[in-house]
């Protein structure tokens, strides 16, 4: 469907919920067209194509004491199905409880139409076969790195073209198209009967902005090879460097602790600490939904509010929470245009393009400066508790001795109090790497507990 057709479906849904008795409503329609393929060695593993559409309807009913709300979603967009879902939404809303804070924004909607370079029509002419050829090249490049790479989990390509349309009872209507592409390679290296895997990937809104298949395959192969012969460590305390692959996970933890929901629920160790120094003064964290070509960019958020630039942490000081209209209302604050929305769920808070401002030093310089410590290149497990800030995750990486990489290590954990970890950041690299919505350069934490043998 083109944008006017999507908005016509939204108009129909909004008229139907109003007729069914809703006092306020908004709708989200997501349409996506995607292709994915994976190759192992020279052979195709799978090719998958899909077209999906989902309409989400949110309706609020109630009066002076507050409103109650409900959400429905359907992939059947026929007129009969839409009108039926609309009245089901209102009936469902009548069954939930009145919430004095419930509501849909009445004003402040995005009125501009910034060119964010989210969609590139010409790439739609690139055939699936050409993309599969890219995967084959990445696969070959990975295997060419070293004879010890003779197997793989494959190299994959994907392209997605989406249209998102949002409308509400207060008259907001907006839609935008976006595209994204990816190329991923995951080779296996083997030596003396043991195996190691690693991966590399690239992702961008425009095909020509992807790293080359040769570069992706080579990087993936090099990363797998350098893990061969990994050993464990003796339990110790040491400085820990997160590389630009693992450092964004730290930003993810911070994001989960500064959403308005975590704050009003007091389910975050950062609740109530606005204005306080919560991290080292090397740390400046920014969320900006309007970076041209950004993988998290969009002209408006899930409630039609314009996206913007928010400094979340300014030289270590907690400068802003991330808020949608509901959590802002709960906290007596203003939305930061951070409403994330899928068709089937109520708004929540999400980051857009979220990054840690880079410093001056290269990773090599940080390693040289470290003397003895750990460079973490992979993290596994879910050992972070946002309520207490307790942090303990499985890790693999490279041991640093005398300011240089010494040998690979694995089957270890790194642990600490996340609050202390943020305060103990004593180096931030210059190597900011964008390949998703969240990006960070290398980061060093002066001291953590490393558990091993």
């Amino acid at each position, binding site marked *: 469907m083109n944008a006017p057709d999507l908005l016509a479906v939204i108009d129909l849904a909004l008229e139907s919920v109003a007729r069914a008795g809703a006092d306020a409503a908004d709708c989200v329609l997501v349409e996506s067209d995607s292709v994915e393929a994976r190759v192992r060695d020279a052979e195709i593993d799978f090719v998958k194509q899909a077209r999906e559409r989902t309409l989400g309807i949110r309706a609020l009913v109630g009066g002076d004491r507050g409103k109650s709300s409900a959400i429905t979603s359907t992939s059947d967009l026929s007129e009969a199905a839409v009108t039926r879902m609309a009245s089901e939404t209102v009936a469902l809303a009548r*069954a939930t409880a009145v919430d004095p804070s419930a509501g849909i924004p009445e004003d402040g909607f995005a009125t501009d139409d910034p060119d964010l370079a989210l969609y590139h029509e010409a790439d739609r002419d690139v055939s699936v076969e050409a993309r599969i050829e890219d995967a084959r090249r990445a696969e070959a490049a990975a295997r060419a790195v070293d004879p010890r790479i003779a197997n793989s989990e494959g190299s994959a390509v994907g392209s997605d073209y989406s249209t998102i349309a949002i409308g509400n009872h207060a008259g907001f209507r907006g839609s935008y198209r976006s595209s994204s592409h990816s190329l991923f390679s995951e080779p296996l290296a083997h030596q003396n009967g043991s195996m190691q895997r690693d991966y590399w990937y690239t992702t961008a809104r425009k095909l020509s902005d992807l790293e080359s298949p040769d570069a992706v395959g080579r990087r993936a192969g090099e990363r797998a090879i350098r893990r061969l012969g990994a050993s464990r460590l003796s339990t110790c305390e040491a400085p820990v460097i997160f590389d630009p692959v693992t450092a964004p996970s730290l930003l993810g933890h911070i994001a989960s602790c500064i959403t308005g929901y975590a704050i009003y629920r007091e389910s975050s160790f950062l609740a109530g600490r606005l204005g306080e120094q919560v991290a080292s003064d090397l740390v400046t964290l920014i969320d900006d939904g309007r970076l041209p070509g950004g993988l998290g960019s969009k002209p408006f958020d899930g409630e039609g509010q314009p996206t913007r630039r928010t400094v979340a942490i300014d030289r270590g000081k907690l400068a802003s929470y991330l808020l949608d209209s509901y959590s802002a209302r709960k906290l007596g604050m203003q939305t930061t245009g951070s409403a994330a929305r899928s068709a089937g769920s109520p708004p929540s808070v999400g980051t857009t393009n979220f990054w840690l401002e880079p410093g001056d030093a290269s990773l090599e310089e940080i390693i040289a400066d470290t003397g003895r410590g750990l460079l973490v290149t992979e993290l596994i497990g879910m050992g972070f508790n946002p309520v207490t800030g307790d942090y303990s995750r499985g890790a693999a990486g490279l041991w640093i001795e005398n300011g240089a990489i010494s040998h690979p290590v694995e089957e270890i954990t790194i642990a600490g109090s996340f609050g202390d970890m943020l305060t103990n950041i004593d180096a931030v690299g210059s190597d900011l790497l964008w390949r998703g919505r969240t990006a960070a350069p290398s980061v060093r934490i002066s001291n953590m507990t490393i558990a091993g043998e």
Partner: protein
Amino acid sequence: MKEPTPRETGDEALGFFRDHFGLDDRSLVSALDTALERQIDFADLFFEYSTQDSVSLEESIVKNGDRHIEQGVGVRAQIGERQGYAHSDDVTVESVKLAATTARAISAGAGGVSSVPVGSGTPTVHDLYPVATAPTDVPIERKVSLLSEIDIYARGLDPRVKQVMASAVSQHRNVLVVGSDGSLVGDVRPLVRLNVQVIVADASGQRREVGYQGMGGRFEFEKLLDPEAWKPLVAESVRVATLNLDAEACPAGAMDVVLGPGWPGILLHEAIGHGLEGDFNRKKTSAFSDRLGERVASKGVTVVDDGTIPGRRGSLNVDDEGTPTQRTVLIEDGILRGYLQDRLNARLMGVESTGNGRRESYAHLPMPRMTNTFMLAGEEDPDDVIRSVKRGIYAVSFGGGQVDITSGKFVFSANEAYKIEDGQLGAPLKGATLIGNGPDVLTRVSMIGNDLELDWGIGTCGKDGQGVPVGVGLPTLRVEELTVGGTEG
């Protein structure tokens, strides 16, 4: 209520798709024939119509109710190791044929197979989850009042409870699998789940902790409405949260670990289960590749994957390729006996599918996945297992886990654990991560309790971006020398 026979369970799904989408035998045959116009080893159609609803509470208010309808069809064509897949949320004969045209593009060769003989419905072997009322047909008002009762009860249990978050989720899925081998299998799958999370604060308000407990399975929603069922669940989440208010920093380093019964079975899921999935073993990317018949665990260790336990979250009458589920012995008395297979990997490895071909929805390709994975009970008294440890930890409950199939390294995070000193349980410990090596962790099992328990019905397993419901189970287990990722040296 009338107990439906297995035959009727399959027919119910078939009838549903016939009535709802006008899919008769002729249209199914013609869609498959479209796929088979190319040279194809096997093709199938997977139809799905799912209804899901949920209600959620926080701050003593049921703030949201939602309801979702998902429908679609996925068409798959296989030749050799290749798979072509296309799916559509438009369930019409035309769109199924269009998807079949896309899927078959994986093959260049011309086909020549004559019309597929689609039967009148292949009887299913099991009937593991008959329900009189679809969970999504239980009135939303009853679910709303359940959450309000839970909120009041939780706050009444302990004045330190500051926040209660609860949700009830109901799902009802109709699936129909039509294969180019003439198979036609339907299934109707109920799934319910209740989640309770509490946040507690100590008197000073300085220290806060969280506790979570959930329960669910493939059974009547009615069961969750029974206070005998939900009260223990709520009490458990409050107990864990308040216990952790006094938790001490966890030690770091290698030490003996006693795992409690039930949910700690995710050790098996992560450490060995994934490594025994057929796809990784066909591709020889698993640390367990080519090791059938070898010793991978201590004597006495027997691990099974069983999709046939009535009412369990991980159970299925048939997998998502229409193959009946079964009980598969993975490890028998310490020896590796079997892998988990879907159709593709079974064919390529020259074995039979074990009924483990699962997919998240019609929008996903099937893969070998676990169902309910657990270790059989041993003979030790659980108290004796704890008493046997000089210095170590006793881990009772876990958050989540993850594994690197290739290196075999796995982790899982404890949210209820205690120090053991000289055989005595000591202070509760703050969240610790355990890390180990899958291929050898079960060789370090030195004592197996007599108390096998299955989990409460809360597991969701993720693989390649697809989530499917699973179950785990374990008796109390002593494992020598696991690395515990705490902060105290």
